[in-house]
């Protein structure tokens, strides 16, 4: 429709043009929005549901992901967001750069000792309710680097994880499946499992005064947050 075809209202009648609107509204109840949701309501515009159920349904269908690249898996994660796989089709493709705007965190890679406290901090900054997808073997057990002196044996040592996507790295299809599964769980109102988290951020002053703490006492401030890794107890 270009400018050399003037609109009907200009060359025809000057009466308000209502025919398009009328045809869109059609007979019976107003279904201009034509959504599946509206169809599901039938002829009445009222629904009766539990508020929680409604909220879960909304949450599951509008997930804001945290833009969080760690290691190899993040390349496949970018591919999942990018064309061809396009995670946005599933209502979950808006990567947010700030954790304060995100409600799902995909952990795409190996967590090492230096990054553990930072990841915990990023997780803590996300508003509730928040969900975590662990992507790849490293977030399950440390993966191929499990025996490394510096590698945390799975992201679940630090933060709770709702969905594990195995693979090294998982294909984009696998991640899409994982996200879809997470949506399903959220819609059903299932909460994440409570796991034992051995590694917490603690104030240095609160730690038990063992050999290591005494050695570092001159370097670290009492108020500083620290994470203590007990490698010997790790799985």
């Amino acid at each position, binding site marked *: 429709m270009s400018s050399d075809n003037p609109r009907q209202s200009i060359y025809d009648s000057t009466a308000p043009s209502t025919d398009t609107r009328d045809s869109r509204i059609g007979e019976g109840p107003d279904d201009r929005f034509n959504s599946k949701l509206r169809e599901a309501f039938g002829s009445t515009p009222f629904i009766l549901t539990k508020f929680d159920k409604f909220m879960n349904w909304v949450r599951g269908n509008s997930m804001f992901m945290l*833009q*969080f*690249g*760690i*290691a*190899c898996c*993040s*390349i*496949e994660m*970018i*591919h999942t*967001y*990018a*064309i*061809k796989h396009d995670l946005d089709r599933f209502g979950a493709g808006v*990567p947010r*750069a700030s*954790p304060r705007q995100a409600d799902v965190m995909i952990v795409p*890679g*190996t967590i*090492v*000792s*230096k*990054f*553990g*406290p*930072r*990841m*915990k*901090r*990023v997780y803590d900054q996300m508003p509730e309710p928040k969900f975590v997808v662990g992507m790849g073997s490293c977030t399950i057990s440390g993966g*191929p*680097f499990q*025996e*490394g*002196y*510096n*590698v945390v044996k799975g992201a679940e040592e630090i933060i709770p994880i709702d969905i594990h996507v195995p693979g*090294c*790295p998982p*294909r984009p299809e696998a991640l899409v499946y994982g996200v879809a599964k997470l949506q399903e769980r959220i819609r059903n109102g299932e909460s994440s499992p409570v796991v034992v988290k051995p590694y917490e*951020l603690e104030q*240095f002053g609160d*730690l038990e005064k063992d050999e*290591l*703490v005494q*050695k*570092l006492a001159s*370097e*670290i*401030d009492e108020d*500083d*947050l*620290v*994470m*203590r*890794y*007990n*490698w*010997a107890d790790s799985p």
Partner: protein
Amino acid sequence: MSSGLERTRPVETTEDDLEALLGDRALARDDHLNAPGFVIRPDDVQDVLSDLRDEAGFDHLSCLTAQQYEDRYESIYHMKKYADPTQEVSIVVPTTTDDPVSESAAPVFRTADWHEREAFDLVGIDYEGHPDPRRILLPETWQGHPLSLDYDQEKPQLVTLSEHANPIQPDHHDAESDTMFLNIGPHHPATHGVLHVKTVLDGETVVDVDPDVGYLHRCEEQMCQQGTYRHQIMPYPDRWDYVSAGLLNEWAYARAAEDLADIEVPEYAQIIRTMGAELCRIASHMLALGTFCLDVYGDFTAVFQYAFRDREVVQDILEDLTGQRLMFNYFRLGGVAWDLPEPREEFIAKTRDFLDELPAKVDEYNDMVTSNEIFQVRCIDTGVLEPEVAKDYGCTGPVARGSGVDYDIRRDDPYGYYSELDWDVITDDGCDNYSRVLCRMREVEESAKIIEQCLDLLEDWPEDEREIQANVPRTLKPDADTEVYRAVEGAKGELGIYIRSDGTDKPGRFKIRSPCYHNLSALGEMTQGEYIPDLIASLGSLDIVLGEVDR
């Protein structure tokens, strides 16, 4: 057949020349497979290295390997010439176990700064006179040196999450000015992973930059030292530079180990390797371009998605070839895992289709990116890296070539099938962000040329001569105390590997020379005095991968 591949090489420095140059500073010989080695005293390091650089032209401190033996510590400086990397010399500096102190080479080569910090961090050698003797990969509060012989991995460790103090304030240099300290990362979209850049700003101008790495230090060297040569090491190189550069990295290990164990690779396998490696280079450069545009334009749309569209095609081809999208594990010592997929014609046709479409796509990128005025304003004359500075920091790959350093291991120290093919080394004298991007884009075209020629060869190869693997023993046990340092041209630059065998089927020491690590060390030099958006652009144009920086 090769046309642009001949280069004038400097006069060779023979072993006699070296012996004469070092005189009685050379205590003994400790030859490696790749180079003559000279043992020197720990307090002669600066002297010897600066003589080698100024008198004999060894201007590339390629790698520093630190290791501990039962009776001593040892630092090995692997020196090369930018003009001819086949001329190498190893300077071996032993120190005692009780007092591992060695003179720092940082005043001679600035790249030694980060090398020595890493050696101190992981092995525990102290470098006297080092300007900044801190840990680099592990947290400051770490106890022990993990690659030393007496390290106990079971001991608990503490890691702090403290706010970083303004490094300018304590010595009151800037009491008058109002500089601001800014942490960029470790979780930030512009850092391409988990890099932490400590930045000091004066208004919008960058005063000081200190890249803080180690947020992805996955103990790759330890992992490789625990694996057997034959099969267990090969999966790890895929995970160093994980931006689809897998085959390039695998080749680094394959080249070093094949030299160590004296394995001859069949010609047919070399062609497949060359083709696969160049496909990886295209995929890697596409991501570099896409993320660079993401950094500069700041959107997740057009160029980024275009680059990923093309990467998908390359990854499809690589998946057909290797069976994996990202972590290929396709090379074997002595060849490759399997031949081209059947039906062969289909694979070749598919790859050719990609190559046929590539010029149009490259034009599209040129339209959208390099000829875009806004892009040019952002990139030209920002992040300037002078060639001499680039050499001083040990920069290689597109970063060095974008500064006019004509250095490409594929041509200068040939391996694989490169010397038989017709292609060019791309250099650009701009020294800025723009020329680095341009270099990568033109390298994509050169890679396409290489792949094209490989496909022609593969297509006509007689069916009964398709030998994909040499005959390699099931267990490899190279002779004890054989040492080799070999490098290949990875997507980011010179990827070198040092292996010392100890007579078993696992390496005694496995050291990775990562190109990104050294390219990143030049960031401060490139960005001081520039605006903060240029810092982000410079970081993007270095095209670092944290998996390879931290290893």
